[in-house]
C-alpha cells in the first residue's frame, strides 16, 4: 500500500539514510525511535512537506515521491495537533471537505458520524484553545479522517498527554480503527505504546532503519540497543 524505497533526505545537520519499508492496507505501522532519530522528518517527507534527495515513495503502486502534499491523500497529524486556532472545531473538521467541494448534506453527515465515534459532538462550536489535550487530539483525528486519506500519519500523538488519558486513548484508537478501518503510520519513542498499538514496528536509530518486525521481535532489539548504549 505505502512503500518507501531507499529514501534519503538531509535537513540541516540531520539525515535519513536509505529508508525502506512497506505498510500494508489496514495495517497499524509504528516507527519507534529516540528523540532526534529522524521520525518526524520521515513523516513529513512521506506527507510531501519535504522532498527526498533520493529514493522513491509509492502509494497503492503510484509514485508520489514528488507530488505536493495536497495531491497525495495522506493525512498528517503533527505532535501539537496543529488545529487552526481561528476556526471552530466544526470548521476545522470540514476544512478539507470544503476544499474537496463535498455537498452540504454529505459534510454534515460526515461531521455527525465522526464526532459521534470520537465523542466530540459537544465540542463542535468551540475554539481549539478551549479544548484539553485529549479533546484536541480527537478533533485532529476527526479533521484528518474526514477527507478519507489513504494513510494516516501520527507524530507522537500521546506525548503531551498524561498517562491515564494516554492509556484510554490507545484503547480508543484500537476501537476507532476497527470501526472506521484506516491504515496508520504512527511514530513514537515509547516502546509500550508501540507494542500495544502496532501490527508491525520499525525501529529507527540516527536516521537508519535497524529492524522491522512485530512487537515481540522489536522489544528484544530495542532492549539490546539500550544495553549497547550503556
Amino acid at each position, binding site marked *: 500500500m505505502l512503500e518507501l524505497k531507499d529514501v534519503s533526505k538531509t535537513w540541516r545537520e540531520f539525515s535519513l539514510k536509505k529508508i525502506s519499508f512497506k505498510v500494508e492496507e489496514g495495517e497499524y505501522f509504528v516507527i519507534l525511535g529516540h528523540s532526534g532519530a529522524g521520525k518526524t522528518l520521515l513523516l513529513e517527507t512521506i506527507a510531501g512537506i519535504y522532498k527526498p534527495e533520493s529514493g522513491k515513495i509509492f502509494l497503492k503502486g503510484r509514485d508520489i515521491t514528488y507530488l505536493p502534499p495536497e495531491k497525495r491523500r495522506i493525512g498528517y497529524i503533527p505532535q501539537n495537533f496543529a488545529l*487552526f486556532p481561528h476556526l471552530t472545531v466544526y470548521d476545522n473538521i470540514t*476544512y478539507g471537505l470544503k476544499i474537496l467541494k463535498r455537498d452540504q448534506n454529505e459534510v454534515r453527515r460526515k461531521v455527525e458520524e465522526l464526532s459521534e465515534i470520537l465523542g466530540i459532538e459537544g465540542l463542535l462550536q468551540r475554539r481549539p484553545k478551549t479544548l484539553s489535550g485529549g479533546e484536541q487530539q480527537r478533533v485532529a483525528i476527526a479533521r484528518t479522517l474526514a477527507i478519507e486519506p489513504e494513510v494516516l500519519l501520527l507524530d507522537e500523538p500521546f506525548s503531551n498527554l498524561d498517562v491515564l488519558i494516554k492509556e484510554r486513548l490507545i484503547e480508543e484508537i484500537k476501537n476507532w480503527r476497527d470501526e472506521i478501518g484506516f491504515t496508520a503510520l504512527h511514530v513514537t519513542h515509547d516502546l509500550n505504546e508501540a507494542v500495544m498499538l502496532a501490527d508491525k514496528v520499525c525501529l529507527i536509530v540516527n536516521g537508519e532503519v535497524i529492524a522491522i518486525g512485530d512487537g515481540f521481535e522489536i522489544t528484544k532489539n530495542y532492549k539490546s540497543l539500550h544495553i549497547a548504549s550503556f
Partner: protein
Amino acid sequence: MLISLCFGVPLGYILARSEFKGKNLIQAIVDVPVVIPHSVVGIMLLVTFSEAILDNYLGIISAMLFVSAPFTINSSRDGFLGIDEKLEHVAQTLGASKFRAFLTISLPLALPSILSGAIMTWARAISEVGAILVVAYYPKTAQVLVIEYFINYGLKHAMPIASTLIVLSLIIFAFLRWLCARA
C-alpha cells in the same frame, strides 16, 4: 498604505518563510529608510528616478511609500513568524494548495500584526516632510504647507493648519485602530 500592503505582505511572508541567499541584504534594504535621514531619502529618490518624480503626485507617493513601507513589511514578517508553519503543512495535507493555505490559515492569523503595521505605515506616511520637501515641493501637501506658513508668516499662522492636522490625524488613527480591533 494600500500600496505598501500589496507588496509588503507577500514580501513579509517570503522573509518569514523562505531561506535564500541574500535574505539578510533584502532585510537590510527594507530597514534602510528607517535609519537614514529623510532628506537623504529624498535625494536618493531624485538620483534614482530624476525628472519622473520631480514635483508631481508620483514623487509624493514615492517619498511616503519609501519611508513608511518598512512598518508593513516588518510587521507582516513578524506576524507570519509567530504562526506555526505546521498549520500550513496540515492545511496542505487536507487538500489546500500553498496559496489557499496562505489565504485561509496564515493570512487571517497574521492579520492583527499586518493591520497594526499598516496603521503605522499610514501614520509614518502622513507625517513625512523631509523627503517630500526634496522630491516634490509642489503639488503642496499639508505637511509642506505647515512648514511654508511657519517660515513665511510665523508660528501664529502655522498653528491653525497644524491643529487641523492633529485633529484629523487623531480621528483617522482612532478609526483605524477601531477597525483593527474589530478585525
